[in-house]
């Protein structure tokens, strides 16, 4: 995972890689939340383009970060969603609460 902060949009950009499963989720959550608070961020953009695998633990992670952003008056966007990931995310219903964008820059424009 890599993170960067876009000050103008108060957005934390989280680029995930490898596998996002239960095993990795706890430490990712901790790192993201730490950075979110330290930066006083509002929004989170998840860049999933380099992610190789995700199961419902990833859905839980995204839902948890959604709560964090909403509490700060912000939004969550997903970008770089592969067709396979799209099926998983669609059945989870979280597209009702998080945004979708083709790229990180498109997501930034939506904020």
């Amino acid at each position, binding site marked *: 995972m890599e993170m960067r902060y876009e000050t103008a949009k108060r957005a934390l950009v989280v680029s995930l890689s490898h596998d996002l499963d*239960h095993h990795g989720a706890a430490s990712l959550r901790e790192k993201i939340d730490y950075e979110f608070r330290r930066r006083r961020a509002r929004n989170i953009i998840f860049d999933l383009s380099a992610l190789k695998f995700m199961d419902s633990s990833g859905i839980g992670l995204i839902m948890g970060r959604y709560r964090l952003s909403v509490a700060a008056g912000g939004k969550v966007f997903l970008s770089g969603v592969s067709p396979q990931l799209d099926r998983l995310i669609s059945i989870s219903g979280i597209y009702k609460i998080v945004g979708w964008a083709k790229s990180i820059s498109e997501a930034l424009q939506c904020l």
Partner: protein
Amino acid sequence: MDNSMKLEFLSKSSNEGFARVAVAAFASQLDPTLEDLSDIKTALSEAVTNAIIHGYENTKGIVTISCQINNDTLTVTVSDSGRGIENLEQAMEPLYTSHPEMERSGMGFTVMETFMDSVSVRSAPGEGTDVTMSKTIKGR
């Protein structure tokens, strides 16, 4: 039976990735598409994670995966001898989770049912849980 394998491992979360790779390598004999493989890995990951966190509640136990290939069909059973499920109907409802504080989404069974052709669960409180899933790989 065309082929079969059985895998047993400690209920450590670091084995989740290993279990996915092993089952995908076994399933590869059916010449699945990348999408099929991804479906199988995702469903398996849900069942294995459940055995570790719900079945054994992060204590030490053995997770068993049995796989069979019959013609074009892969059947996978994930078993634990952990706490078992009291109310199976509730457990299988989308969004139901007994551990929201662990950021579980309650979507595990729904994912298994969506990504596999069939899912059946046998569970007895105090004895453990078996989740059996199957998927037929259409020839290309």
